[in-house]
């Protein structure tokens, strides 16, 4: 009897040890994945949504209009500084009053990073307004479309490895470590993406055709405060053709050497224009453009080196909700 008990005890210990080892294995795997994860993916910048029931679908005219918008930074760029703002518009200001026309600043929102792969939890912006008496205006019910617009500065950073072959046409038995080829880069955790880098190797130089696309579904426009101010729906100065679909190329580096000065076509301020693409429904928000940059004076055997592209721009996203204002019975 004692022996049986002892065997049973041993078996329990063995099961416990196996269980611990397995759990430790799982933990290690998770830990490893998290830090290997490429957080510079995705096509979103700031994501907005209305807080539940704020505003409600129906509001009586003796109640206060309370709009709460949750903001999440789903991209890989930190949003900071007081220039980034959220505006509420689209309503009749004779009926809904008290909404600030200067918008509400967006609090600093940390983007995705290696230690925060999902982006910061969220921050909120609030708008409070008053509804004028509908009864005295002979109105029983009035639909209003509330448009929330976020205007913010953002960046796209591409960092990929490319193969540089200074002598691609050489006839040699020497084995090359890499062959220059085009790379699909997808997205970089921002609404503007470098989608593809086409590599064209020539003797002594390599040319890069870098494709840039608006993949976020919003509107991209020139970086800088003066343009950010024009994004305010109440501003007398509106964003126009000369402002929208422009992205500033801050730098293009290959192996630590800046080749930005070789990039074409850029304007005097380093902007590239994205041209709207046609969809089945007509012109869409998806602008696409490319620039051609050149790395000159390379020599030696082929090698792999990082290419870095840094883009700056302002971005506008919006969400909309219809509310029904009702005359108090």
């Amino acid at each position: 009897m004692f022996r049986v008990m002892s065997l049973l005890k041993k078996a329990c210990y063995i099961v416990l040890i196996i269980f611990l080892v397995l759990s430790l294995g799982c933990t290690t795997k998770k830990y490893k994945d998290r830090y290997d994860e490429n957080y510079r993916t995705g096509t979103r910048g700031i994501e907005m949504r209305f807080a539940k029931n704020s505003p409600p679908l129906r509001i009586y005219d003796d109640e206060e209009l309370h709009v709460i918008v949750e903001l999440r930074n789903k991209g890989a760029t930190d949003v900071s500084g007081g220039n980034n703002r959220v505006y509420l518009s689209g309503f009749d200001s004779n009926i809904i009053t008290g909404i600030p026309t200067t918008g509400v600043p967006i609090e600093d929102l940390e983007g995705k990073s290696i230690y925060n792969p999902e982006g910061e939890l969220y921050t909120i912006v609030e708008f409070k307004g008053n509804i004028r008496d509908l009864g005295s205006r002979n109105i029983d019910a009035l639909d209003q479309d509330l448009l929330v617009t976020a205007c913010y500065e953002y960046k796209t950073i591409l960092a990929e490895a490319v193969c540089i072959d200074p002598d691609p046409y050489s006839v040699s038995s020497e084995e090359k470590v890499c062959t220059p080829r085009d790379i699909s880069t997808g997205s970089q955790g921002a609404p503007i993406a470098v989608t593809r880098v086409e590599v064209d190797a020539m003797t002594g130089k390599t040319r890069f055709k870098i494709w840039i696309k608006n993949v976020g579904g919003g509107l991209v426009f020139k970086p800088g405060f003066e343009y950010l101010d024009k994004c305010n729906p109440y501003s007398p100065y509106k964003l126009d053709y000369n402002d929208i679909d422009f992205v500033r190329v801050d730098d293009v580096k290959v192996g630590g050497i800046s080749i930005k000065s070789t990039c074409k076509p850029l304007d005097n301020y380093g902007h590239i224009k994205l041209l709207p693409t046609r969809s089945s429904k007509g012109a869409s928000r998806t602008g696409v453009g490319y620039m051609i940059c050149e790395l000159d004076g390379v020599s030696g055997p082929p090698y792999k080196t990082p290419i870095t592209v840094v883009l700056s721009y302002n971005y506008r996203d919006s969400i909309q909700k219809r509310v029904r204002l009702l005359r108090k019975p």
Partner: protein
Amino acid sequence: MRALPLVIITVIVLFSGCARQTSKGIDINIHTGTRGLEMEFLKNAPPTQVPEGSTFIVGVVLKNRGASDIHRGVLALGIEDDYVQVDSWRGNIIKSSYNDRLVWFDLEGKTRFNPMGEQLPVQVQLISDYLDKQTETYTTTILLTACYQYKTLFNDEVCIDTDIYGTTKEEKVCTVKDKVYGSQGAPVAITKVETRIVPHSDYEDVLIPEFVITIHNRGIGDVIRPSVYEAACTSSSLSHDDLNVVRVEATLSGRRLKCSPSELKLKENGQNKVRCTLTTGIDKEMTSYLAPLVVELDYGYMFTISRDVEIRRTV
């Protein structure tokens, strides 16, 4: 005891059903339909045949099926003096002190709490006269004419888009478009609103919203100038200018519009158009938005129903 949870669940389900019904009630739209006042004879009142020298009842039910209240509506009885006399009126009415064939009434229209509108039974007792010796029967016509002042209240959102040439890249909640309508719970209806936003002739930063509103008499009666509606039911004469006239008032976001003409004469087909303008204009820098357009039409309305009664000689 086992059935107790079932009973509780049933009660909860039933109650939640009631709650939904109540909240749905808010959505009742009373401003629909082309009916205003309706009037119909009660069964056998008047009877098809009456003996000479006898009393008989003419009964009608007045129903306000529209969305406007009727104050001081007039009900006029039309009878042949040589064959029928008025004895007395009954009902919640005001009798005329100078004309026994006229009465006044008030009748509430449809509301969210009474979506059928108010009804009013009215009876008038008549006396048939004796026929000539040579006459065995005589068929006389009893007419009842209702004249009342009525309102059409139109209320909808219209898009105010200050980017009239579509040059800016502003996010818009709406775009300007013409809208077609059926009815608003009254016999005279607004059937179309065409919206135009035009630049101000003097001020560059001001835009003028302008609405071309089509008005249509879709009921079965006639439209009269509102100030003379009572005359249509009395012996006072009406001029041609008083017929088919509708008074128009409109506001945009509570601001009064200038409507031209302010008294619109409907054409022979019962339709016409009026132009209403916000002369003070709106700021060009405003973003697009939905604004409440409220149009109020005031008019008199009249219609008649009739029934034949045969008066028979008694032996």
